[in-house]
């Protein structure tokens, strides 16, 4: 198979919030920058974000970055790196105001300042009471953000390669990153983007689960590419689940439904939350509700032919209330559950929503790996930001509205660091390693010529079902152990996928097979890391992690206050310490995480 080479100063993979923000930095500095994206930039998944972006502007009431930092550390269940968290919270106002200057139409107060609303987990005065910290643009925050940043990029001459799929990272024998190998979906042409700086901003990988709120595009390509190039993946056992996704579809049903009086019921119609949370009942926190739902299902009280979901009942509410207060929910029921929720309850399951782990980075946006006894050595030429990266600011659990902030802050800092490195570095491109390129071409050849192999759709489903069953929102020792074997078996199938369609133009079968190569790496990393971590922390909750005075709620700081690092080679784990020391303030000391 033939290929061509194109030279750039910088190549960015991904044109969601993180990629677009990084690109502004490089193009403004005058560097020749290519941005590759599988879909048109403003169709990146960031569009789905509606809740808003966190910044302690203090426009409606007193607020400051230190309180925001405290909330983020606590939300992370102390697994977040405190230097990166301080960096992010301190930079929040700057990046939000910049976005305003790029033309983002934020909702405003009468006095013209950005309007802010409260959001779960964001508090004033170190956890005292809720604070208004989220900035939004109606219910289209993510969309407006992408538009503003895309326009800015067009102005500063960023070169977009739309409908291109990056296939592999080019990393030479010294460990330096020299660009990516990519395919033009329109023609099937393979091109090596030879660059001095490579930034990954490929978003999340939520499609490893059967029930996921993520769009189909979220296949963890950046993580797969990094893992194949020998870069470890950090904290992949930590996934945030939303309690109420439509069973079988994943489409989110807002918490507002329970807020308006919706009731969760099991197969015998029982309002089971009364047993798990006698006071808050159906309004208990996300974790508590998700865990209760899983327990009901695991103990045989689920509904439907496979007893694999519970019901969210609003049939007792007046139809006018539903149509007025919960617009959209009726249509979601009809479209995705085949249910008229005015007359029948909705089938729901805890649904994968956000990936806390990812490619290990520091707060400068550099990808860092352990080397010669140092746990965090930058990989020359390689940067990452957004949901694909793990800075780590979300630690074991993310606060809502902090991920849009993450991609602005670290998109910018990855861009800034790349600019500084380009300025300081040599003017020539390092030679490309032929054997690395050949490996990718061989992977493509294998796929194009495979006979008697496995079906992509079925294999992906097998992976997704295994992840949901063995490493879902509530985890069990024996299920995790079995899950490791199961996912390794699926991986063998993935290595032999076969496609019938061999055409060149937008061959979606080929694209999906290549995406599955990435998903499976994320799935393995998740299963193996989750099986090994025998405590409960944040979103990783194990049935066998007991609540004792030394291990409150199963969290075992003595043995597990550390980041997991999973390597594809040998399917092995390593660990590195959590950075407990912030940049300028005192450490936020370990405490039981209670709300």
């Amino acid at each position, binding site marked *: 198979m033939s290929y061509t080479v194109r030279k750039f100063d910088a190549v960015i993979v991904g044109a969601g919030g993180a990629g677009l923000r990084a690109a502004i930095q490089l193009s403004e500095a005058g560097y020749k920058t290519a941005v590759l994206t*599988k*879909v048109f930039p*403003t*169709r*990146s*998944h*960031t*569009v*789905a974000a509606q809740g808003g972006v966190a910044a302690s502007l203090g426009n409606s009431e007193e607020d400051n970055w230190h309180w925001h930092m405290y909330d983020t550390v606590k939300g992370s269940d102390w697994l977040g790196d405190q230097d990166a968290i301080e960096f992010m919270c301190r930079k929040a106002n700057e990046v939000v105001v910049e976005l305003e200057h790029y033309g983002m139409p934020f909702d405003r107060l009468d006095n013209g300042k950005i309007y802010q609303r409260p959001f779960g987990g964001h508090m004033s005065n170190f956890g005292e009471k809720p604070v208004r910290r989220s900035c939004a643009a109606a219910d*289209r925050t993510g*969309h407006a953000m992408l538009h503003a940043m895309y326009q800015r990029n067009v102005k500063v001459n960023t070169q977009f390669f739309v*409908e291109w799929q990056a296939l592999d990272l080019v990393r030479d024998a010294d460990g330096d990153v020299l660009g990516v190998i990519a395919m033009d*979906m*329109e023609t099937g042409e393979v091109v090596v983007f030879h660059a001095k700086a490579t930034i990954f901003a490929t978003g999340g990988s939520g499609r490893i689960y059967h029930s*996921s*709120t*993520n*769009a*189909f*595009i979220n296949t963890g390509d950046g993580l797969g590419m990094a893992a194949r190039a020998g870069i470890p993946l950090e904290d992949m056992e930590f996934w945030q689940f939303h309690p109420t996704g439509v069973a079988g*579809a*994943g*489409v989110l049903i807002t918490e507002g439904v329970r807020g308006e009086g919706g009731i969760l019921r099991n197969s015998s119609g029982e309002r089971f939350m009364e047993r798990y949370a006698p006071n808050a009942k159906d309004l208990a926190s996300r974790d508590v509700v998700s865990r209760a739902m899983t327990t009901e299902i695991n103990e045989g009280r689920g509904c439907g032919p496979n007893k694999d979901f519970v019901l969210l009942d609003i049939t007792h509410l007046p139809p006018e209330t539903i149509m007025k207060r919960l*617009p*959209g929910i009726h*249509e*979601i029921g*009809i*479209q*995705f559950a*085949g249910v008229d929720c005015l007359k029948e309850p909705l089938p729901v399951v805890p649904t994968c929503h956000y990936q806390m782990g990812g490619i290990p980075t520091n707060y400068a946006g550099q990808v860092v790996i352990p080397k010669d006894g140092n746990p965090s050595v930058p990989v020359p030429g390689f940067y990452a930001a957004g949901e694909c990266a793990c800075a780590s600011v979300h630690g074991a659990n993310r606060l809502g509205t902090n991920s849009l902030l993450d991609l602005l802050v670290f998109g910018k800092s990855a861009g800034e660091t790349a600019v500084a490195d380009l300025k300081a570095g040599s003017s020539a491109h390092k030679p490309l390693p032929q054997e690395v390129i050949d490996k990718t071409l061989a992977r493509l050849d294998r796929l194009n010529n495979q006979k008697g192999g496995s079906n992509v759709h079925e294999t992906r489903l097998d992976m997704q079902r295994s992840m949901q069953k063995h490493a879902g929102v509530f985890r069990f020792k024996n299920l995790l152990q079995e899950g490791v074997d199961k996912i390794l078996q699926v991986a063998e199938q993935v290595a032999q996928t076969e496609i019938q*369609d061999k*055409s060149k*133009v*937008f*061959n*979606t079968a080929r*694209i999906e097979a290549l995406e599955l190569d990435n998903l499976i790496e994320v799935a393995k990393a998740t299963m193996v890391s989750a099986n090994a971590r025998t405590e409960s922390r944040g979103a990783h909750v194990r049935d066998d992690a007991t609540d004792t005075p030394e291990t409150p709620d199963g969290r075992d700081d003595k043995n597990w206050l550390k980041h997991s690092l999973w390597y594809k080679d040998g399917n092995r784990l390593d660990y590195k310490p959590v950075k407990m020391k912030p940049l300028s303030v005192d450490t936020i000391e370990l405490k039981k995480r209670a709300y």
Partner: protein
Amino acid sequence: MEEDRTARINRLKWHCRRALLELDIVFQRFWEREGDVLDAQGEAALARLLELEDHDLWALVNGKDVTDDPQLKGMLERLRVV
């Protein structure tokens, strides 16, 4: 030369990869139902809808917004079939 049907359909299919899961699912079902029978007029109508922004498209599919355009209306009805 006119592009062959496979190429045209494959391009449309890829353009059905959206930012919103709701739309991904609607299109997935649509292709399962109509992939083999979609005619040139259908292709044209779909291509026009796919030019829209995701939130606008979803509002049309879920009935929150309406259009008077007969070509789009017909295609939206087909997309809404469950």
